[in-house]
Every structure is written in C-alpha cells, then in structure tokens.
C-alpha cells in the first residue's frame, strides 16, 4: 500500500465518520415532551411566550389586538408574535426543537400528526384542572381537535359552508325560496341556466363540477351523511352510500346542464375566487356553495348584490338532516418545546373560551366563533345572511373531515378519482369507490410503517 492509498483511505474514513456523526446529531430530534399541567394553576402569570400563527396584513392586526388585550389584562406578560407561519414551517420548527409556546394552525389537516407525535401537548390535564366546559363547543368541532383519544388542540374560530343564492335571479324565474333538496337544486339550476346562441352557457344556475371554487367532496359530504374514515383510520368511502348518491346526482346534473365540456368551458372563464369578479358576485352563477366569510367579501366588493344564504340542500332520504353543513376551523395548541406552558395555556384559554376575545376575533376575521356563549353575545356582528352560518354551526348533524395521520391525503386521493368521474371517464362507480378505499388504505398503511 502506498502512502497515497493510506492517506486516501484515512481521508475517506474521516469523511464517512464525520457524515455519520452529523447524521446522528441531526437525527436525534423528536422524543416526547415533558410539558404538562402543574398541579395548581399559578396565581399570577408572568414571562414571555412565542406565538406563531398564519395570518398576515390586516388579519394579523386583528390577532394582535386580541394579543394586546391579553397583555393588558396580565401586566408582566409578553407575547411575541410571529405572523404568516404555515403548518409546514411550524411543524418543521417544532420538530427541530424550536421553543414555540403557542401555535395556531389555519386548518385541521395536521391535527392527526400534531397530536400523535406530541408536537402539540395533551391538553387534557389543563382542561381538567381548570374545569374548562367543553360542552360549550359543538361535538363536531370537538372531534376535529383531537386524535386517537388525545386532545392536543382547542378550536379558535370556525368556517361553515352553506348555499348562497342570488335573490334577483331566483325571483326572475319565479322562485322565492332556496332549494332544500338536491333534486330541487337540480331543477332550479336547470331552470336558471341561460345559453348563448352558440350553445355556450352565459348564466349558470349552479356549477356541479368539483374543483370550481369551494365545490369539494368534503363540502358536499354532509348533504348525504357521507363518511370518510372508519374508527381505525381506514377508508369508509366505499362503504358509505352517501358518496354514490352524491356522485350520481352530480353526473345527472352535469348531463342536464349540457355536459362536461360545456361546463368546463364555462369554468375556464371564471373570475378569481376572492376578487370582485367572483362569479357569484357578478351574477354569472345564480347559486353557489361557499363559506361564511363570503358575506364579508360581498359587503366589501358587491354591496348591491341581493342575495340570501341557506343550508346546503340535502340528498333524497336525508331530508331530516336539512340545516346541517360542513364545518372546519383554526386550531391552537401548546408546542412541545414550550418554556412557559402555564402562560401558554392561559393564552390559549383566553383565545378559545373568553367571550370577548372570541367576539373580537369573529368580528375582525368574519369567521364563526366556536364558543356557545360567544355565538349569542350581543357584541357579535351578525347580518341576516351570516346568521344562517351560526345556525348551521350549531346543528348537530353538521360534519367535518376527520383528522388522520396522513393529513388531508385521503381527500386528495378521492379528488383524483372524482375528477375522472365527472369528466365521464369512469364507467363503474362502485369499483371506483373501492379503488379509492384501496388507495387510501395503502397510504395509511405506508404511514403506519
């Protein structure tokens, strides 16, 4: 062996060792937290906490005003706010060990992972010790704040979806009431649709294509009591008759309105969802599924629009469920690296259970408060159209999409198939739904290891 070869071997050996060391050092992240509730709540709160949330610009200002209220109520307390942090950034930071005390996630997508990994700590000891009344929160909402028996989040504000309808367009066709069933929706949609000379659609009664604005399987599901997942996390889509009902209804309406191609053409020219050119706001579409926040956009961008809101129509056979809708929301929890968990908990309690805070957040962000007391508080700004969503929120039949270890992937998987279904590429609906089951289960299995 020449000196050169020896030197090379030593060099490469050192390099390998260095890499391994770095790897192990980096690898030793994760591990459970020791953060839990102290036996007694502290008399006085003090110190500093890091609060990460997703909002920016004027919405961040709304959050800041609530933070300021909290700080003024507890002198000696500082809340350092980092705005504009999305889920991925937050989880990556927590996983790398950054000491985030309170995290507010914009969606419920990651509740499954946050709770199962301990990234957000179990709040049960805090809730029990301080006697927080979870009964103030609807059961559906409670269900999306916990996973596998661990409640690691509390709900901050909610989004609720329902039907918006243009009263002028409906009135011109002789309708004074919005549709209550999917069949009625179809009939009215066909009636309200107008065509140009070349056959293309100029005004659409209701858009049946998924992927158009807020048309999503998750938003339609409650109309037919369609289920997503079983208790064990496997897919319940194939075994839930609601999905077949919904998809058959959709195919039928597509047909009646002129077919997939025609509707795609209409969709190609849609206005940006949150611009003043939103199809519903310009009257291009007479009825549309949307969330409670749309009332704020209409007030701002189309104040002259005459519209009403109502719960989304239900499928045949589910008439007793009318009044329900889809609910989702923001969730907030304590990061596992928190250095001041008691203060973090106090802040969370404030955000989620203090009526004034909830009212301020709702008025500022135009979302639905999640505490029953806040829903009826006289300070809450409620227009006639916004009230619909509060009612839907409290309806016991309203549903949400369950947390899962694979996040929203099960919805994404379903979406790839419904896209094919609505374009007419699928002949056998039942086997398509079985295929969806298989694919979701495979993904769940892959994550379970």
């Amino acid at each position: 062996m020449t000196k050169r070869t020896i030197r090379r071997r030593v060099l490469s050996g050192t390099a390998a060792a260095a890499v391994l060391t770095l790897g192990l050092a980096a690898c030793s992240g994760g591990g459970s937290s020791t953060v839990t509730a102290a036996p007694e709540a502290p008399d006085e709160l003090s110190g500093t906490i890091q609060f990460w949330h997703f909002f920016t610009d004027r919405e961040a200002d709304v959050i800041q005003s609530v933070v300021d209220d909290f700080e003024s109520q507890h002198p000696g307390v500082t809340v350092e706010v980092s705005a504009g942090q999305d889920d991925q950034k937050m989880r990556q930071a927590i996983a790398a060990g950054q000491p985030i005390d309170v995290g507010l996630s914009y969606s419920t997508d990651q509740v499954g992972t946050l709770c199962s990994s301990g990234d957000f700590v179990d709040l049960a000891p805090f809730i029990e010790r301080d006697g927080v009344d979870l009964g103030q929160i609807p059961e559906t909402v409670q269900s999306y704040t916990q996973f596998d028996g661990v409640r690691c989040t509390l709900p901050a504000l909610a989004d609720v979806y329902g039907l918006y309808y243009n009263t002028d367009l409906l009135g011109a066709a002789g309708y004074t009431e919005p549709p209550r069933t999917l069949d009625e929706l179809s009939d009215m949609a066909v009636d309200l649709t107008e065509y140009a000379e070349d056959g293309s659609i100029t005004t659409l009664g209701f858009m049946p294509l998924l992927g158009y604005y807020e048309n999503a399987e998750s938003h339609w599901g409650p109309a037919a009591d369609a289920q997503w997942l079983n208790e064990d996390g496997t897919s319940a889509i194939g075994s839930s008759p609601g999905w077949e009902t919904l998809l058959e209804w959709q195919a039928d309406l597509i047909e009646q309105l002129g077919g997939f191609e025609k509707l795609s053409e209409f969709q190609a020219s849609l206005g940006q969802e949150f611009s003043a050119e939103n199809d519903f706001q310009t009257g291009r579409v007479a009825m549309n599924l949307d969330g409670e926040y749309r009332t704020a956009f209409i007030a701002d961008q189309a104040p002259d629009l005459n519209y009403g809101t109502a719960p989304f129509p239900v499928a045949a056979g589910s008439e007793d469920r009318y009044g329900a809708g889809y609910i989702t929301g923001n969730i907030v929890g304590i990061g596992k690296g928190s250095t001041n968990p008691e203060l973090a908990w106090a802040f969370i309690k404030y955000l989620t259970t203090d009526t004034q805070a909830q009212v301020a957040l709702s008025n500022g962000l135009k979302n639905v408060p999640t505490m029953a007391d806040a829903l009826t508080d006289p300070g809450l700004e409620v227009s006639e159209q916004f009230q619909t969503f509060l009612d839907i929120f409290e309806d016991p039949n309203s549903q949400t999409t369950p947390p899962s270890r694979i996040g929203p992937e099960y919805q994404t998987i379903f979406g790839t198939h419904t896209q094919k279904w609505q374009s007419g590429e699928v002949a056998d609906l039942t086997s398509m739904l079985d295929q969806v089951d298989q694919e979701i289960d495979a993904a769940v299995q892959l994550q379970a290891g």
Partner: protein
Amino acid sequence: MAAAPVRPGAGRSPSVAGQPATEGATAHLSRSRRRRRELVALAFLAPALLGMLVFFVFPLVMTVYYSFTAFDLSNPPRFNGLANWRYLFTGDPLIGTAAMNTLWFVAIMVPVRIVGALAVAWMLTRARRASGLLRTVYYLPALIPPVASTIAFVFVLNPGTGPVNQLLEAVGIDPPGWFTDPAWSKPALALLGLWVLGDVMVIMLASLLDVPTEQYEAAELDGANGWQRFVYVTIPHMAPILLFALITGVIGALRYFTEPAVASATAQGRAAVGAGTSTLLGWPGNSTLTYGQLLYSKAFGANLLGYGSAMAVLLFVVTAALMAVLLRRSRAFTPEVAS
C-alpha cells in the same frame, strides 16, 4: 514555483496512479510536479469539497436513510424496510403521470428554451443601436419573481378575456384554452419558459461575443457562408456553454415545481402567493402534475416524508445516470476544449 526548466510534454502526467513517468531522470520531476499540482488543486477545491460533504453527502445520506422509514416529520422515523420503494414502483397511482409529465418538460421545454435563447442572443449580436436597452428588455421577464410572472402570464393567456385570445379571435383563429385545457396546459407552460429565457440568453450572448473574429475571417476566406460559419465556428466555440445550458435546463425541468403549481391554482381561480397543496394538483386533469409537485404533496401534505425521500432518491439516481451519459457524450462533442 518550479525552478527546473520545463520540457514540453513534461507537464502532462500519466493517468494511471502510481506509475512512473517515461525516463528515470525526469520521472522524479514529473511525479513531484504532479503531486504539487494535485495539492494545489486540492487547495483550490477544499472549500467546495467541504461544502459537498455538508450540503450534499450529508443530506443525501439522510434522504436515503429516510427512504427506508415511515417518517412524518414530527414522530421519529421508523424503519419500514422496502415499503416505500414497493409503493413507489407498484402502489402510487399518480407516479406514472407525474413522471411522464416531467419528461415532457425535459424533452420539449428544454430544447425549445435553448434554441430560443440562442436565436435571441444571435439576433442581439447584430443589433446596432440600443443593444443595451434591448438586452435588458429581453432579460426583464427573468427578473420578475416567478410567482408574479406566472400569474401575470396566466392572466394574459386567459381563454375568455386575455389579450392573446382576443387577438387570435379577431384574426379569426379559434383560440385554445391554454392553462385550462389539458391538451394545452403543458405547451402554455413551455411558452412561459420561453418568455423567461433571458437568464439562458445572457450567458449565450456572453459566449457568442467571445468567439474570436479571426476564426470567422479565416472561415470566410475558406469560402464558408453564414450558416456554415455558424455551424463550424460558432457552435463548437460555444459548446461548453451549450452543454451547461442543456444540463442545467434538464435539471430545472426535472425539478419543475413553482410555475406549474402557481399556474394551475391561478387557472382554477385561486391565485395565491407560494405554491400550496390545497388546490387540485396538476389541474386540469393532472396534466401539469410534475414529479416535484407530487413529491412535495406526498412528503408534506400527506406526511409521507419517507416515501417522499424514496421519490427523491429515485430522481437522483435516474438523473445522475442521465448526466453521466450526457457528459460522456459531450467529450466526443467537444474534443479540443474538454478536460
């Protein structure tokens, strides 16, 4: 610095390790010269080598490791053998589509951009006045942050109301749906790629202006016409830069992520800053779903980071092989300038 006189040929070392040079007397000299050269090269390369270790070998090793685990970023990774790999080759329903779409961009968008950049650069060498201004204008789109430029481009190509389609209709052509039509969405993205060819164009221009005029004059004297001068003088001289454009273009196409994600979201009516995963990927009809988008969606949307790592390793292996082939071929393509 060498004190001994340098003999022609003595500077070149035998390529086989450890073998002595030609004559006994000069063998010692050329070996020590070679060693000195190698030490200098090592010194010049030391920071890059360290960088390679930290920012390439380390993440690569970790990624390969993760590809054999179930990892959701928050819980520690759990070894799961070949499960990710099996899923990659047999289970994932979208992997084929994503791979084919990505290959489309590699095979079509990359050459189109290179040819376009070369053409524009060539034209610019003939510009007599305002060439600096024109250069800036052609480079400008490449300076716009990609999200903003993609959104602007999608709006300009809006099927109903965009100026391009309005112009086409006025001329009597039935315009395509561009980003809303599964058959046109990829070509539309290729057009976007052409629009931002400024970055490639600039280095081509630098290389074009570098060609020695004497060589052109010599060729002209030999009776070569314009096209022949281009093929036999210009192209060979630009070969290293063309290779660079080809390789970086292919790498960029294999990673293509932001523009298709933003274009797809904007065409669906949800123009947003930053490419999210909440809208339908690759809309319409998965036509613009790229490998990079699928990887991101699986790794961070579905929390299948282990699977995403397997996808990353596969991409790495395939493209490394492709690069090796391209570079070997390039040696034949550029005999006098290759190392």
